[in-house]
């Protein structure tokens, strides 16, 4: 019906460059094993990085970039061979992404909203993934943990066994068996607490997060804005790394063509050009990771915040509501300026 349009030649050029380098990424061996659907209820959806949406079905595999979206009556259980089991609860968006950390490709599994329960086995034998929400990521070690994401962007980690290190706003909290911590969006982790003896119900917790947002909508917006600023800085840094690495990689590729001696050419390709090409690929992976994390925060936290306020105030738009909308528009404007340049149509 409608034609896809590009907003400018610069964007098109960048997209072509990305496509070429993503080829390098695709050729690299994946560190993480794909997660397969072993059980499901209802009609959960699978969204792919190519922008397609399909019903999830038994036996389907999820790879980096894929998302599972569950409705109110849906439930999904995934397994990564014997390495892990992941249970995705109703009204949840669960995403698998990859990021390069210290030269190693690392899997990041997160839920932007809703709740996910993970059980990782120590026998995985590979770099264990990181887990979290659209606003907080945690490192894990042989862990059974449940991660909740609230409507106000806050996160709750409850550990059954193993160790989890939750880091946010430059501060970390280490959790072990039967410990939990709540993390406000854009802020440091709160005090950790004992889970035993403290009845926790996600529905109640989610309702209290929604209540807190409605009590202080501007405060919640500020928290989201802080986290988006962090993503913006990270994305911009990695994008500059990409530009620098690409310039050097292109120069090295030209140099390869100038080398006459076959042996010397092969050595130069392996020792000089390939590391630069790998750096370029890693930089793309990382600026995209931060941009997509920001998009998740925008889509699943910021958007529903606007919906809540708009629909509650559609007939009576008082000063508090107008103040909310002004601040919201400001954040969305900053989002457009900071992230749209890193996003592709298929991300939406």
């Amino acid at each position: 019906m409608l034609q896809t349009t590009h907003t400018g030649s610069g964007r098109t050029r960048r997209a072509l460059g990305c496509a070429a380098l993503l080829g390098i990424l695709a050729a690299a061996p994946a560190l993480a094993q794909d997660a397969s659907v072993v059980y499901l209820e209802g009609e959960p959806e699978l969204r792919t990085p190519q922008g397609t949406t399909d019903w999830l079905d038994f036996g389907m595999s999820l790879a980096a970039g894929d998302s599972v979206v569950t409705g109110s009556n849906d439930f999904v259980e995934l397994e990564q061979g014997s390495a892990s089991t992941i249970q995705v609860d109703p009204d949840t968006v669960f995403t698998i992404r990859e990021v390069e950390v210290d030269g190693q490709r690392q899997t990041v599994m997160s839920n932007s909203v809703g709740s996910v329960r993970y059980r990782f086995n120590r026998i995985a034998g590979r770099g264990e993934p990181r887990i979290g929400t659209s606003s907080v990521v945690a490192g894990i070690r042989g862990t059974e943990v449940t991660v909740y994401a609230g409507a106000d962007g806050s996160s709750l980690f409850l550990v059954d066994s193993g160790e989890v290190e939750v880091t946010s706003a430059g501060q970390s909290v280490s959790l072990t068996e039967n410990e939990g911590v709540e993390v406000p969006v854009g802020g440091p982790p709160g005090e950790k607490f004992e889970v035993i003896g403290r009845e926790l119900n996600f529905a109640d917790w989610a309702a209290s997060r929604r209540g807190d947002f409605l009590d202080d909508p501007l405060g919640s917006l500020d928290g989201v804005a802080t986290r988006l600023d962090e993503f913006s800085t990270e994305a911009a840094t990695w994008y500059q790394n990409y530009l620098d690495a690409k310039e050097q990689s292109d120069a090295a590729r030209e140099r390869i063509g100038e080398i006459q001696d076959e042996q010397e050419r092969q050595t130069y390709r392996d020792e000089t050009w390939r590391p630069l090409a790998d750096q370029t690929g890693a930089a793309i992976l990382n600026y995209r990771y931060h941009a997509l994390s920001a998009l998740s925060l925008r889509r699943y936290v910021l958007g529903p915040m606007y919906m809540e306020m708009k629909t509650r105030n559609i007939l009576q738009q008082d000063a508090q509501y107008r103040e909310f909308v002004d601040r919201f528009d400001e954040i969305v404007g900053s989002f457009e300026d900071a992230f749209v340049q890193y996003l592709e149509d298929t991300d939406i």
Partner: protein
Amino acid sequence: MKRSLRTLAAALFVALFVASCATVPVAQRDNRVQALLEELNTADIDRLVELSARPFLLDGEIIVLERDVRTLWTNLREAGFTFDAATIEDLGAVTDETYRQFSDSMEVRVWFERYAPEDAGLARVSTTHGTFLIVTGDRVRRTPMIFGFTGPQEG
């Protein structure tokens, strides 16, 4: 002679009617969109969720989860909002430029390109609460679905 002329005229009328039905999608037919508006004003929340496509577009925001669509209609009802005394002022197909009337952003442009269906219609509806733009498309039996809306529009 007169009788055969009348028969011919009736046949032509029927043919034209059938032809028009075949060419104008349900989502762009005035009476069907009016029926949708009536349902939006009177149906229970479950039915409203059924009639709402996802991802749903509210102004410049894309609402993905069924839970959030349910919250949207529940909040509107609790606020006392309906498309009260709705009059369709204009109804036609969505165009390449429609997205700008919702939000001049990449996300909304892509939403229209990827998620608005082939038969998507755009209705300009005046109500006692102001004028709204409603994106219609597809259908549940004979009723078009609502894919999103924006409003009330200023001015």
